[in-house]
């Protein structure tokens, strides 16, 4: 049985009349521990689909199941990383990472240990006591990912988390993200408009346009993927395939 199961998910904005359909009868499944990417142009409905999967938006029709349980509201089993780091500027890096736990219950020493471990994994041990504005964009994104992972979610949903970063920082973070998710066998759905990013990260890529999936492909590049994979012939063939699907060829 699949781990994440999206069945006929449809979402329409409740405007005047029938409302505009943003996500149109999407079916998709993700097996446990797999990394899937969703690519598409701005406004194609990919972020909306991700929010439906997160339980932040209720689908107009259809459903999303995670481990066989229907998603009706945000749950602690799902981590979400937003387009911007969305850190609380008045709290330290450590407190930001601990936020998901401190909202649920009183903090215990083991929570701090776990936060310290995550900080080490994202290479920010020395920054625990700093404030978000004292960090670079890439460091802020790392904190946001650590915050999403501290509750040890079964599923991690990411909404173009690296879109605002420069190319080199983005590549570093992609490597880190794969490492972190493999480490815990987290199932991932990652939304992006960057074709190369999608292919580098994913086991499977879906191309979305006007609320529908136009194309889906399995990325057969072996793992672990080194940096030079990005310049291989196969990588470029896959990029072209996705690109042509986006162009509607």
């Amino acid at each position, binding site marked *: 049985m699949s781990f994440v199961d999206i069945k006929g998910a449809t979402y329409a904005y409740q405007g005047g009349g029938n409302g505009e359909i943003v996500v149109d009868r999407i079916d998709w499944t993700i097996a446990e521990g797999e990394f899937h990417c969703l690519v598409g142009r701005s406004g194609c409905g990919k972020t909306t689909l991700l*929010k439906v999967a*997160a339980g*932040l938006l209720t689908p107009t029709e259809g459903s999303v199941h995670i481990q066989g349980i229907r998603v009706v509201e*945000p*749950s*602690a089993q*799902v981590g*979400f990383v*937003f*387009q*911007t780091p*969305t850190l*609380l*500027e*008045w*709290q330290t890096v450590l407190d930001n990472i601990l*936020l*998901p736990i401190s*909202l*649920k219950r009183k903090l215990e020493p083991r929570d701090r240990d776990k936060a310290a471990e995550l900080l080490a994994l994202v290479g920010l041990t020395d920054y625990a006591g*700093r*404030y*978000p*504005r*004292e*960090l670079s964009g890439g460091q802020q994104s790392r904190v946001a990912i650590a915050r999403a992972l501290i509750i040890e979610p079964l599923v991690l949903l990411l909404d173009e988390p690296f879109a605002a970063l420069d190319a080199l920082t983005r590549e570093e973070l992609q490597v880190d993200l794969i490492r972190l998710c493999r480490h815990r066998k987290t199932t991932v759905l990652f939304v992006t408009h960057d074709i190369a990013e999608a292919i580098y990260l994913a086991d499977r890529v879906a191309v979305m346009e006007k609320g529908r999936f136009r194309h889906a492909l399995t990325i057969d590049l072996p793992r672990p993927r080194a940096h030079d994979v990005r310049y291989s012939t196969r990588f470029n063939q896959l990029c072209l395939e996705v690109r042509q699907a986006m162009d509607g060829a």
Partner: protein
Amino acid sequence: MGTRIWTWGLLVVFLAGWELACRVTGISELVLPAPTVVFLTLWNGLVSGYLLPHIWLTTVEMLLGLAVGCGIGFVCGIVLGETEFLRRVLYPYVIATQVVPKLALVPLFIVWFGFGMTSTVVITALICFFPLLENTMTGIRHIDPQKRELFRMLGATRLQTLFRLKIPSGLPVILAGLRVAVVLALVGAVVAEFIAGRAGLGAMIIASQGMMDSPLMFALLIVITILGMLFYQATLLVEQWLLRRHLKGESQ
């Protein structure tokens, strides 16, 4: 540092010009007393202790009014900011109470509370209420939508969202309201004393007018100005302290 010299230099030039003008024209002390005369009056008033109870009374009235007005304004701002229904129902009334010139209510308050401190405090509180209400409401309503979604995603309760996201996030705006309230509070207290006070700096101004004692009136104006500047600076310090975490890394 350079600008500070200019600021003080300007004051010296201004005072010297004023003094010179008074001496050269020989203008009556009743119309425009020379700075030396004013400062002598001020000095005597302070040393003899004549002015001190009045300064104290006005300060207490202002602080009480500020505390009550800001406290109620803050709470009402949160309630109206959090409840769409109440905001829609009550906001027109809030505006209406603010459009009424509050000082025009002093005669009524004298009937209700009598002459003296209570009336002045009530007026000051009414004046401070609005900036806090308005800024608190604005501050807690304009929250980054992604941060709201983050708190929803993390399953935060409404109270948690209020205390751990909305109030800290709106704090800079709320404190800007406090700064406005402090300035208005002093003006409110002094002007309310014009009408309702038997003592206090405002009442003294009216008394000095009755005694045709212009140097005293000027001395009082200086006291009020210094008082206002001190309170404003104190508010800035409080603001900096409360926002010390918000400001971390801002300058970089």
